[in-house]
């Protein structure tokens, strides 16, 4: 993507002003995937000068600033395991030092590993003007918010883990899967190759085949839907056999 101009606001109010007053403005998070898109934009709003890179926690939740990089998530010692695992093979360290969690979320990238982890955790997104919205609703609907994501709230869980299958280390995932067990158990599947979704109506007596039966997997150049489904089933079986979730 080419920008005619890039501004670096020093407050959220200023950033929002730019967004509200320019029809063709694009917010830049890490900017890495934006770069690969063949588009022109009048104005880029770079959030890197705002204090949006942080990891905070209280008793029940983690609060992650939207400009926190994937590398900071990877080396965090407090975040849920599935988040840490999900980012480990997203490109190399150089890439993860640039890519932000907010950019990954707002891009709604279907190949995203971190979005699948966030979905399994029941994350909530906090926008500057419109307030909170669940990750599930945000990914499931196609509207454009025209707002600035400021932070992501992740409930603390007892156990979580993430799996993905890649042709090579650091490549895009062919399919990914994340499981979190807190007040209840949530399973999310992504890179199907469609966007990440939550597995509905989980019955703890079901096998991985039964659990994933209603999830749609499709063909693309990287692999067939049937192949993706089989890998997802194997990954979920592996997690279920660890037996940590259902007791």
């Amino acid at each position, binding site marked *: 993507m*080419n*920008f*005619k*101009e*890039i501004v*670096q606001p020093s407050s959220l109010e200023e950033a929002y002003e730019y967004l509200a007053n320019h029809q063709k403005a694009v917010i*830049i998070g890490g*900017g*890495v995937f934006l*770069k*690969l898109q063949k588009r022109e934009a009048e104005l*880029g709003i*770079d959030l*890197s000068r705002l204090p949006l890179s942080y990891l905070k926690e209280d008793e029940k939740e983690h609060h992650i600033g939207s400009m926190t990089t994937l*590398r900071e998530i990877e080396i965090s010692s407090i975040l849920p395991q599935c988040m840490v695992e999900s980012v*480990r*093979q997203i*490109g*190399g*360290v*150089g*890439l993860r*030092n*640039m890519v932000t969690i907010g950019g990954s979320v707002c891009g709604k990238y279907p190949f995203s590993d971190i979005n699948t982890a966030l979905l399994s955790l029941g994350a909530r997104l906090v926008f500057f003007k419109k307030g909170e919205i669940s990750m599930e609703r945000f990914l499931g609907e196609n509207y454009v918010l025209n707002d600035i994501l400021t932070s992501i709230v992740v409930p603390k869980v007892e156990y979580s883990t993430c799996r993905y299958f890649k042709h090579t*280390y*650091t490549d895009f995932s062919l399919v990914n899967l994340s499981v979190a067990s807190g007040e209840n158990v949530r399973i999310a599947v992504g890179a199907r190759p469609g966007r990440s979704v939550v597995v509905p109506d989980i019955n703890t007596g079901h096998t991985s085949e039964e659990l994933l039966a209603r999830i749609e997997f499709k063909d693309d150049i990287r692999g067939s839907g049937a192949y993706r489904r089989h890998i997802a089933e194997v990954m979920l079986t592996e997690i279920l056999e660890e037996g940590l979730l259902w007791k």
Partner: protein
Amino acid sequence: MEIMLTINNQKRRLLIDPDEFLLDTLRKAGIKSVKRGCDTTSCGMCSISVDNKLVNSCSYYTIRAIGKEILTVEGIPEEAGLIADFITAEGAEQCGFCSPGLVMAIHTMKNDLDDFSLESIKHYLAGNFCRCSGYEGQHRAILKYLEVK
């Protein structure tokens, strides 16, 4: 637009486009160690350090680097020479195109890692490709170099 950057401890006044990437800015400024390999943040040829963090300069907006310390392989000649000695001693160096990026990744890795097992080194360097070799020689060289350091 005109900006000031700190490149290898030197202040430089440079003329850039608003959406220019650091790779292009550095090459225009005469820093030719940074290479455009894939241009999609996959290969690591353009790896540099910005405020002691490894980044791919092909996708790092130049305006983001204002006020930060930019370090390329030209800024660490002694360290780069030592690493090169170890890599050539293993016979791992062939075309040399990936070497400046790899040296910068090794440079930041020394600060970033606590555990220098081969596994964690391989994980850290997974974003720096070499298309000539099979990495074995580089890994031997890096392990020996880290012992000396």
